[in-house]
């Protein structure tokens, strides 16, 4: 007798009922989430809200990759950490919090700095990657790794009152980070080292949107069109969605062999301020 696919636990039906009755979601959508694996790189201001909603929605396997420990200055926006977890590894603090939300999913805390030497191995097991980091070199590394592994990369960024959200390397023709930004910005414009400030709710909006986009991709609800969302918390119309170029045949990372311009250098990933271990406090 043929067996219909079903959820792993009988309790999953009441737990996820509110989303399973949605149009085009259903039992099939829930099963897709249950079977999905997601790597969240960075357990800071973006990673915390993203992890909350991925775990609550029932994504079956979630990796949390970060090498930092919780500090008092994080609590203002990194909502999975709290006064009691100050000093603890961020991945353990975050993993404990989302396991309390959902004990039925597999949570994999990985307390390592992601670098060019380990990125492929760390990210290979996962269907989808969330970039919740806060520095330019790691953004290039994650994009290049997502291209090599053929994984979509849901990338969030936030500073001061502003945020950005983009899905890279998605579908047949979605661009990668290098397609849009072939060269890094001026170091003076990238305040990962100097202190720029951040309003917590701004990282909250972008982080939740990262979880939402990931859920849309995993359940097949995403339309696949490449867009960049800009958020500006103090503007009268705070959101703007931009239509983006397709993948560039000349892109050094994702272009067509023979047409590619330039090459990817290891040196691209060396943090240009403060040494090789960037601070992921996004």
């Amino acid at each position, binding site marked *: 007798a043929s067996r219909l696919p079903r959820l792993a636990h009988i309790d999953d039906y009441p737990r996820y009922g509110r989303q399973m009755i949605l149009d085009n979601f259903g039992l099939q959508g829930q099963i897709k989430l249950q079977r999905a694996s997601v790597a969240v790189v960075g357990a800071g201001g973006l990673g915390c809200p993203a992890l909350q909603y991925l775990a609550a929605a029932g994504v079956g396997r979630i990796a949390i990759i970060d090498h930092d420990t919780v500090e008092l200055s994080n609590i203002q926006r990194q909502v999975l950490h709290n006064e009691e977890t100050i000093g603890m590894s961020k991945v353990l603090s975050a993993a404990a919090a989302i396991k309390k939300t959902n004990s039925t999913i597999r949570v994999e805390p990985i307390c390592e700095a992601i670098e060019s030497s380990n990125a492929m191995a760390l990210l290979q097991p996962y269907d989808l990657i969330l970039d919740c980091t806060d520095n330019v070199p790691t953004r290039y590394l994650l994009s290049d790794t997502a291209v090599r592994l053929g994984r979509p990369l849901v990338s969030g*960024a936030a*500073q001061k009152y502003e945020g950005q959200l983009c899905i890279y390397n998605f579908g047949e023709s979605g661009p990668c980070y290098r397609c849009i930004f072939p060269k890094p910005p001026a170091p003076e414009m*990238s305040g990962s080292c100097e202190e720029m400030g951040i309003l917590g709710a701004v990282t909250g909006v972008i982080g939740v949107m990262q979880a939402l986009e990931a859920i849309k991709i995993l359940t097949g609800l995403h339309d696949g069109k490449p867009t960049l969302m800009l958020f*500006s918390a103090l503007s009268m119309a705070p959101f703007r969605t931009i239509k983006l170029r397709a993948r560039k045949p000349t892109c050094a990372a994702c272009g067509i062999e023979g047409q590619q311009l330039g090459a990817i250098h290891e040196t691209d990933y060396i943090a240009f301020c403060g040494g090789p271990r960037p601070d992921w406090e996004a």
Partner: protein
Amino acid sequence: MSTIHHHHLKVEFSGGLELLFGNQRVHTLSLPAVIPDSERPSPSPSPPNLKSTSHSTSESRSTDVTYLIHYLRTHLLTDRPELFVDGDSIRPGILVLINDTDWELEGEGAYELKNGDEIVFISTLHGG
């Protein structure tokens, strides 16, 4: 031509670029629809044969995004031009949007401006 037509444009800076423009995000500009050769950026002179045969053509060249960038650098930029332009083009790490579309889909610098166009310059964010 006896009358000079102008394009009214909305120019916006975000992602930190506003700091280079007097910390003002939104600027409204009025640019002539046609730019005389003399006012164009000319780091590399036009080839002589083109220059000699097409004087009237080049005089009627429409205002494009390349000219806008030149204009912004010359008239509005208050700080550190090397963070906005790189030679004659825009600095790496800055994305130009024309009416909510990536400028690469619109012809990049060669896009001819129309009245009411909205041009946004954003610097990629990376922080938290």
